[in-house]
């Protein structure tokens, strides 16, 4: 089980359709301040079904839609697709490759797809449940938050542990 490809369009600062391919091993993302690196992390969290606009640094979920820039009009929707290699069938589907897509329109309406078949957000979250894929656990270390695990109170830490175990 591994990530294969991430596609973003209209998601935060990624106004234009952008594709990032992930291989085995270590993939580095580099660049100047404010250019969009952490937005890539937000895109992965978002397409995996996070319910919390705070986990993607917004003040409301609509904040993930590209708001425009100097001389560039805002977008009407944000869309992220993540393709995973499922040849070990970590995800309980017969597909060797699974693409999860999440879309949000300015109206607040959302659309969700698994391998291009429409579904509900609930279905995406249930598909991932228990697989260790998902971002409410320790597999995403957010910028400036590495201390959190170590300085959190003993009970929070216990919850993280239980989830891991």
């Amino acid at each position, binding site marked *: 089980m*591994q*990530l294969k490809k991430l596609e973003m369009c209209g998601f*935060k*600062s*990624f*106004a*234009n359709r*952008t*594709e*990032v391919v992930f*291989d*085995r*091993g*270590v*993939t*580095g*993302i*580099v*660049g*100047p*301040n*404010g*250019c*969009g*690196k*952490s*937005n*890539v*992390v937000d895109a*992965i969290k978002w397409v995996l079904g996070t319910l919390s606009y705070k986990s993607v640094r917004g003040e409301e979920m609509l904040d993930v839609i590209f708001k*425009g*820039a*100097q001389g*560039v009009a805002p977008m009407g929707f944000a869309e992220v697709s993540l393709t*995973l290699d499922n040849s070990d069938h*970590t995800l309980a589907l017969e597909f060797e490759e699974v693409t999860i897509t999440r879309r949000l329109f300015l109206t607040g309406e959302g659309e969700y797809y698994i391998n291009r078949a429409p579904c509900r957000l609930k279905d995406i979250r249930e598909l991932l449940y228990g697989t*260790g*894929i998902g971002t409410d*656990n*320790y*597999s*995403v*270390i957010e*910028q*400036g938050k*590495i*201390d*959190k*695990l*170590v*300085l959190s*109170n*003993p*009970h929070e*830490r*216990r919850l*993280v*542990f239980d989830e*891991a*175990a």
Partner: protein
Amino acid sequence: SRELFEKTFDFVREQFGQIFRKIFGGGKSDLVIEQAEGVDAMEQGLEIMARPPGKELTSISLLSGGERSLTAIALVMALFKANPSPFCLLDEADAALDEKNVERYAGVVREFAAETQFIVITHNKRSMAVCDALYGVTMEQPGVSKKVSVSLSGDGGLDLLKGKGAP
């Protein structure tokens, strides 16, 4: 179940101790289940002990920024050993580290990359050096992100690091 928890806990505790010692080049660390009065065993909090080499044991709050980052990384990797996650996203986890410790962090990432796919965001050349692939994110057009492929040796990579390609 309680047995499964204890088995996993002992394993994570042991791994945490080993990885900590490898990252710090010595010292000692531990995970301890609190023994608070009247609290069910499955509800007890989890304490972390960490003693860098040559130092006396102090509470984890007294550790330095860099020491806490390394301790957190050791714990995350220990949790991965017990329950491997397919991938791990590290967003500037090396921000507080001095050069020597970035090398150690990069070494640990490299080692665990055999079983786990890593995506690492960094401004540091030594972290970049252990990447199999590097993507640059720039904003040639202000406010609009763009992905570029980057190689460490080419000028593009180094320019990206210097903050060029930013509006």
